[in-house]
């Protein structure tokens, strides 16, 4: 009896300690985001956490017409357009390739998958300068079209997750449809696609997200064409050495405006990713 009591007592202390630990850790993990929110509403500058007064100026200035160097509103629009077009094209590419790799059997299939794997192991930065020169030859550098082309062209290589999903759809369904006289195209559009909603949504969300967070390719392709930047590179530029003192709080405000939709997107992505991984036909 006494032993049990001491057990439960030590259990209770462990519980309390765990709670304290979790609360402290949560604070550590959330604090940068709280700081970001606070700083977006103050005039703190880049060397203080709290400013002297609450203000909405940072948000208003982002969209002010007098601003000559940083066109936040324009960037937001650029990114939105690029992201929409990219997610349509990329999703189409990813679905075609992953379905082909999962369901259709042809001679080069295995080699294609191995080549895709090898291509993925080259560091992306290595070929970016070449992409720049290729797009320059066709006069697409410094344009949004060029950015869309660069983002979507290689999308077909990212087929692994969607292929894994298609693999879980029982082949018997396809075979039954073939026996009934359906062509492979009909099987894809009328049977596979309706069964694949989670993975399609996941693919759409990830390719939409990719255009918002990339700043590397933009830095190669857009050079000093400030009004063709997308949001991530623009925000990066706002806090470089020359601009940080003036733009720091505006950077925080701008970040908040991007972070809100992207955070929601991320949480949706999590849900569809989990659904996608658990397969199409639940056992």
């Amino acid at each position, binding site marked *: 009896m006494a032993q049990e009591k001491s057990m439960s007592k030590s*259990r209770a202390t462990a*519980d309390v300690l*765990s709670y304290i630990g*979790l609360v402290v850790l*949560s604070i550590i*993990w*959330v604090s940068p*985001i709280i700081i*970001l929110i606070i700083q977006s509403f103050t005039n703190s500058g880049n*060397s*203080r*956490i709290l400013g002297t007064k609450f203000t909405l100026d940072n948000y208003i200035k982002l969209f002010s017409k007098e601003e000559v160097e940083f066109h936040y509103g324009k960037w937001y629009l650029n990114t939105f357009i690029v992201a929409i077009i990219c997610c349509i094209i990329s999703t189409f*590419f990813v679905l*075609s*390739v992953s*379905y*082909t790799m999962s369901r*259709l059997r*042809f*001679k080069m*299939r295995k080699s*294609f998958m191995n080549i895709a794997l*090898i291509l993925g*192991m*080259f*560091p992306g*930065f*290595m*070929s970016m*300068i*070449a*992409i720049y020169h*290729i797009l320059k*030859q066709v006069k697409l550098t410094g344009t949004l079209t060029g950015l869309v*082309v660069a983002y*979507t062209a*290689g*999308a*077909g*290589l990212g087929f692994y997750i969607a292929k894994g999903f298609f*693999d879980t759809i029982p*082949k018997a369904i396809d075979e039954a449809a073939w026996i009934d006289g359906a*062509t*492979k*195209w009909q099987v*894809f559009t009328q049977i596979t696609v309706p069964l694949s909603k989670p993975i399609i949504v996941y693919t759409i969300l990830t390719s939409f997200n990719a255009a*918002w967070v990339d*700043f590397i390719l933009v*830095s190669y392709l857009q050079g000093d064409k400030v009004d063709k930047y997308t949001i991530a590179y623009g*925000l*990066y530029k706002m*806090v470089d050495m020359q601009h940080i003192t003036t733009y*720091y709080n505006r*950077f*925080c405000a701008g970040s908040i405006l991007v*972070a809100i939709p*992207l*955070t929601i997107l*991320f*949480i949706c992505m999590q849900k569809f990713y989990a659904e996608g991984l658990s397969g199409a036909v639940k056992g």
Partner: protein
Amino acid sequence: MDDNNLQQTSSGAYKIDYEADNIFSIIKQIFEHGDLFTKLSFLIMGLSNLVRGQIVKGLIFLCSEITFFWFMFTSGFSNIANFITLGDKEPTTVIGSDGFERKIPGDKSLPMLLFGVVTFAIIVGFVILWKGNVKSAYLAQYDVERGKRPKSIIRDIKDLFDVNLHKTMLFLPLIGIIALTVSPLIFSIVIAFTNFNKSDHNGEMTLIDWVGFKNFGNVLGMSEKWGNSFWKVLLWTMAWAVFATFTTYIGGMLLAMLINRKGIKYKSIFRTMFVISVAVPQFVTLLLIAKLFAVNGPINTLLMEAGVLDEALPFFTQASWARVMVVIINVWVGVPYSMLIMTGILMNIPADLYESAKIDGANNKVMFFKITLPYMIFVTTPNLISSFIGNVNNFNVIYLLTGGAPDNPDLYYAGDTDLLVTWLYKLTKDQGLYGEASAIGILIFIISATFALVTYRRSGAYKNEEEFQ
């Protein structure tokens, strides 16, 4: 084109085994058994199809052959010649008859290199098309010999949505991949064997030359400063990858166990707190944290005003500080992700394992070391390896936090926290040293490919792909 409909017949038509033999033997068989038109189709593409009534198909082949040779004679051959020499005319200035200086531009090596690569790609594409032409020429002959009508164009198009669906579905994605993934890659690999670098050419980037393996030699140590830089950066990259991988792995495991402890309430609230921190896009949080810890940033100011410090802490400005800081901040970035993965795995450990252990009198400590830990390590090993490779190439964390700083004057444009990939980025973007940068890129590829191939080949997912379906 369609191999599946072939049947052995008694009419004497010879059936070619398309699946088993290699491509040369298929072509040899076609040549041996083809009639005059089929043999002529080796030279005049589409002839056999045209003769046997497949007008559209034949014309497509014929037109593409004409276009190809027109291209080759107008520019293709000169592109290849230029690719080999990479141009030899230096830009010069002459004084014209009117007394003014006139610049005569020299050869431009870079477009020559690029067009050379594109020309080779077009040749490869043509060879593939030619192969298709030969096959289709024989197939038309074969159908006629068996007394069948060769396939109409409508049937061909229908097939593209059925037995040949893979060709239709891969067509556009493949063009994209070849145009903007494969050819840039080949272009960069080729650049690794040239002396292409902006600084030597006054920013004009006109004439460049083949230099063989000199860039690789330089980077690997023939040239002292380059070699020194490469090995130092490589060493730090490996150290970083090891620390970054294991800290987030262990951190994530501990956090997952803490949250999933029996008796902890509000599990989902705690989990959400951590997930929110990673849901905010990385470039935002990393830039913010970098600015918070800057020398004149809020944290230093706060500590100094509170009287804790006399002078600012060199968070990102001193080598050892910066290295520890990036690893710590990476824990902040990476732990929530690994916590999510670990939580999933923890939930999947069969509960009866613990129950039977309890009956055998095991305490919590024993159960952790004998059940939980071995299970987690077993399940997460592939994950561990892929996150190791991910960390070798972890551009965002390093570039956004320190940008490689503090700069190290002993190294070639590299700082003390630079990884190979961030160094590569700086060399191309800021310094224009493309030759050496491409050589480094190839070396990074060799490193990650070795790691990945060894582990991937051994994984069940690769070996048993078909069995799983």
